[in-house]
């Protein structure tokens, strides 16, 4: 029996190891390739052991390559949309969790459909509207575009987090003469703080990772990092070294962010359906 159990576990870990290899090899390969010389990068058979060089990164961040500008744009746009969405979503989500709105189911369906709407179907009307308003190629337009998915997300998530905060404390505060808004500010918000952090980080991630909106709405000087990555593809070929370095720079902060809110990841990615 013990032997059988042992061999079952051995098989289990072998299968898991194979799954890990499938999941991680591409990422590891990207990171490795970003610190290779041209020669090492294109040598066949592929090289796993070599002397690393950071010259691709140095080139990217030098005055000649304007990668810093892309990076700044990404940070500005992502932080702005996150701030707007979380502040509005904080109040709205609380109201949704506590209030008795007659059309609650209708509002829920509306919020979900807006959050999950196919990006091409959102880009098109926004493009026509932005063209009229002169917002194409501007940072404002892009912030606005990202808020179309971040605001419904923040609203929805904050509502599920506030539903978990017991109403009793707020009610006790209100008996003590606190107003509803005061109870929200002094009790509900601090209690739901981890949820607020998790929601903010996920909003940041969704906007940081977007390419479709950015490729249509940003112009010279307002382009974000994912657009920078796509610009490395040209008719003459692809600058693989830079592409892998850019990819690494895009995913590294997101891995840190994602793992930081790991506890809330299931909840965020299942739109609160699984806690």
């Amino acid at each position: 029996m013990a032997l059988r159990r042992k061999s079952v576990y051995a098989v289990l870990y072998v299968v898991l190891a194979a799954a890990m290899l499938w999941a991680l090899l591409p990422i590891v390969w990207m990171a490795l390739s970003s610190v290779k010389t041209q020669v090492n990068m294109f040598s066949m058979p592929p090289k796993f052991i070599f002397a690393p060089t950071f010259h691709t990164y140095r080139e990217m961040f030098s005055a000649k390559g304007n990668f810093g500008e892309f990076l700044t744009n990404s940070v500005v746009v992502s932080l702005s949309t996150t701030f707007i969405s979380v502040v509005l979503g904080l109040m709205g989500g609380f109201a949704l969790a506590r209030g008795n709105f007659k059309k609650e189911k209708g509002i829920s369906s509306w919020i979900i459909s807006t959050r999950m709407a196919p990006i091409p179907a959102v880009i098109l009307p926004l493009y026509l509207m932005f063209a009229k308003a002169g917002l194409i190629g501007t940072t404002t337009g892009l912030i606005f575009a990202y808020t179309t998915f971040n605001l419904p997300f923040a609203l929805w998530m904050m509502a599920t987090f506030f539903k978990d905060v017991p109403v009793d404390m707020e009610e006790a505060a209100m008996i003590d003469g606190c107003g509803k808004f005061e109870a929200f500010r002094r009790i509900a918000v601090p209690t739901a703080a981890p949820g607020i952090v998790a929601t903010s980080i996920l909003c940041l991630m969704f906007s940081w990772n977007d390419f479709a909106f950015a490729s249509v709405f940003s112009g010279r000087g307002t382009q974000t990092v994912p657009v920078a990555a796509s610009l490395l593809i040209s008719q003459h070929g692809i600058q693989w070294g830079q592409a892998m370095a850019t990819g690494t720079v895009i995913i590294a902060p997101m891995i840190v962010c994602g793992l930081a809110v790991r506890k809330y990841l299931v909840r965020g990615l299942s739109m609160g359906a699984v806690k």
Partner: protein
Amino acid sequence: MPQLTETFDRPEQATAAARSRGRAKGSRTEFWMLLPSIVVLAIISIFPFLFLIYASFMDYSLSIDAPSFTGLDNWRRVFESDTFWQSWGRTAIFGVAGLALELLLGVAVALLLYHAPKGRNLIMTLWMLPLFVAPVVSGLLWKYLLDPTYGLYNWFLERIGIHTQILGDISTAMPAVILMDVWEWTPLITIIVLAGLQSVSQEPLEAAEVDGASGFQKIRFILLPMVRRMIVVALLIRSMDILRYVDTITIATEGGPADSTKTIGYYLMQVAFRFQDMGTAAALGLTMLFVTMVMGNIFVKMMKKGEG
């Protein structure tokens, strides 16, 4: 004074009164707290939605600023075009094949992790990393891995005797982009299903053990039925996401070769921004939005059921 005594005598009643007072007063506060979000959401979702409907009846081909009314022309063109149906067909193949593989692999890994005596957390952490990769990077990275000259995976394939340009061949390009989706999103199914498994109570499992159930019987008759709701939730979210993203295909194949990876989303982007036919693209967009709204409604119903 009598009021105070009453409060002390019957605290429950007092709380209830305060509670209802709070509600009555609160409803108004809540309305004002929700209002800014609703207004902004209306501007960024209802207005574009109405605009999309309007655009689907207009002809933008001559000028984006001054479109002309064309009635049902765009809609007729959409429904009569083979490309439209083929793109939806490819989207369906992409969705069904992708989701089937993700479900199979995702649930399998979740079950393995559930039974793993050690290292569950560490393995889960590593397994979920592809989730954080921007779809555009995923497209670029896989294009590199499959590059016919420099690709690592291409080199592996050549070792086992497969010499073809994976992304340049109409028979292999679609399976390849499906695998990119599987690579990136299978962990989503795993984390949702594993969360479900971990909340399954031990009692029925122990009872089954006493009755002499085998490991597979426990999985088949206890664990899987109990996480059914999670699986449906995961599949709903994934299917909406498959309609949502076009990044990976845009980078990896641009819908090619010979349209073999042209899904409905990519087709829309092409009609709108390459052919500048905004009206037809709007009609395409509405067909996509319709599918998402149906799935969103099912999702909300499942959420409500889960709460009750």
